[in-house]
């Protein structure tokens, strides 16, 4: 079994991992999680089983890195309130700002379920293992999250 140059892995899976990180963490912390994920993946890559599902492997690393980034973000001092709001400038530009904002109002679990199932294409059973939950709970979280986004979609988006 041929081992691809790591560059090919970044090109093939970089976008999906970024979307997953953005969905789980929001735009500000997603870049750090992406960087940590691919650096860790590069380190471990030579010993990866050539038959492994590379995307699932990356998403699992991303999940761990998201927790790390989340923790260190929690330790960061709260921004001074009277400064102008910077988050807007860092959010990806586009016509989907409403949906982007809506996503961030979802509970963590629903965002994770959406990210790992709908964006990364993992089966619910696998997402359940990743999130240490049950398939039924994950299925419901994803469906509730989708429903809520759909409501907001009708309101805010055309």
């Amino acid at each position, binding site marked *: 079994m*041929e081992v*691809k140059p*790591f560059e*090919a892995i970044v090109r093939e899976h970089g976008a999906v991992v970024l979307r997953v990180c953005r969905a789980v963490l929001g735009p500000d912390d997603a870049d750090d999680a992406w*960087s940590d994920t691919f*650096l860790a993946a*590069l380190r471990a890559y030579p010993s990866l089983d050539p038959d492994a599902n590379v995307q699932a492997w990356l998403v699992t690393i991303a999940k761990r890195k998201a927790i790390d980034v989340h923790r260190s973000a929690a330790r960061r001092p709260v921004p001074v309130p009277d400064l102008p709001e910077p988050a807007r400038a860092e959010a*990806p530009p586009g016509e989907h700002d409403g949906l982007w904002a809506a*996503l961030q109002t979802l509970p963590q679990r629903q965002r994770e379920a959406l990210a790992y199932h*709908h964006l990364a294409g993992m089966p619910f059973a696998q997402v359940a293992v990743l999130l240490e939950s049950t398939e039924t709970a994950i299925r419901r979280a994803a469906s509730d999250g989708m429903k809520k986004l759909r409501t907001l979609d009708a309101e805010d988006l055309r």
Partner: protein
Amino acid sequence: MTTETLEAALGAGEDAALADLHSRLAAAAAKENLLDVAYTVTGSPVGELLLAATPEGLVRVAFGVEGHDAVLARLAETISPRILEAPERLADPVRQLREYFAGTRKRFDLPLDLRLATGFRRTVVEHLRDVGYGSTVSYAGLAALSGSPGAVRAAGTACARNPLPVVVPCHRVVRSDGKIGNYLGGSGAKATLLEMEAAA
């Protein structure tokens, strides 16, 4: 609301973000000693050249006709799969090649990693570096230079498998009957290089 809408929303501005993240990754990987092979592709009068370097030095120059993807796949197998496109490490080789093709550089002054040429091939490659700009040598002459006058065919093979063409000038080795001989980059590329050097 569909998965596609969600993907579109989260993918907004993604190309620019990914390009930026990619260069951050390459820099971090180099810093952590995880970038075993860095590569870039540069244009030249003999087509697009793939340049690859390990931390020790330039390890591979490849012509387009060799298939850059195939060359990278072989590097993943023979050196390490920790390969990223990282032009920073190749800045010096790119600059010197540009000078060479502009006619202002007669000798490359670069750290080379010759690990892809072993045994007699390595000896030949090392002696090839002594064949000066604008001059040529026959395969028999090269075999003699390499200390094995009888190994003409092996010297030819060593040229054909030179991991660092252009920089290690196997294009300066020609047939003793005056014909130009084969070349990794095609005989057209060989003729271009020889004409360019003769004119300078």
